[in-house]
């Protein structure tokens, strides 16, 4: 039988279900017999609900963050055409960066990209 202190340390993971079955069963058995730990289990579940709800309420950074990232990558991609499958295909991208509109094209062969238009990676 696990002592109360040990049970209480495990409660957050018991509440979220991120725990192995054997430990979960031992905790469930303990909670059936221990009113103090049962009450702490309820408090922990409520606390987790409030915390997760508050985090989910946070506003999303949205498309602005993506645009900024696009500029750092060397221009916001304005056109992206991807034909074929994951293994074989052709992808052409056109970006807008200051006064330039770089075009890049990759041939995809067995899942690997080979640059056929534009600067090669690391060039």
């Amino acid at each position, binding site marked *: 039988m696990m002592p109360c202190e040990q049970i209480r340390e495990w409660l957050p993971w018991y509440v979220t279900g991120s725990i192995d079955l054997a430990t979960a069963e031992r905790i469930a058995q303990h909670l059936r017999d221990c009113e103090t730990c049962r009450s702490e289990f309820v408090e922990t579940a409520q606390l987790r609900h409030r915390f997760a709800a508050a985090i989910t309420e946070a506003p999303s*950074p949205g498309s602005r963050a993506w645009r900024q990232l696009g500029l750092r990558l060397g221009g916001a991609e304005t056109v*992206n055409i991807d034909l074929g499958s994951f293994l074989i295909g052709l992808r052409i991208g056109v970006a807008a960066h200051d006064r330039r509109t770089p075009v890049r094209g990759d041939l995809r062969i067995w899942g690997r990209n080979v640059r056929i238009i534009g600067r090669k990676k690391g060039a």
Partner: protein
Amino acid sequence: MRSDAQLLSRIADQDRGAFRLLFERHSDRIYRFALTLTRNPHLAEEVLQETMMTVWKAAGRFKGRSKVTTWLLGIAKNQARNLFRKEERGRRLPEMPDRHGDASGKIEMSVHVERALDTLPEGQREVLHFVFYENLSVRETAELLGLPEGTVKSRMYHARKNLAKELA
């Protein structure tokens, strides 16, 4: 649908389409974690930017030993630490958006939690986020934080006690 690991493999070949997909799947998660850590929307956006730039440059280093989500959160954690070092966090006041005027009970509840989080140390906010929001196991949390599992459990115990006290 392509898996996150497949997207990373294509990002390693500088595939911007795959990068955008990964961003769309995980940007909210990374931003929310960064917000929990920094308590500042501007810094949280910066952490998101730096995390995604690291992914763009280092996608090939992902070896599949952990979940992609855990790998991304690990990068975000390091980026937040780097920012803290640069910004001398002690001098900055939290700048969370003022939502006190909102009549919604749901928003009101979030404001209470946000205020409570402001009072907790960074390490406790971090462990609360990993466990209560990301549903990570003790082992996964310990790996991400580089701490023994026993320390994670005891830190989480104190974190939830402190959060409950602040919310009471």
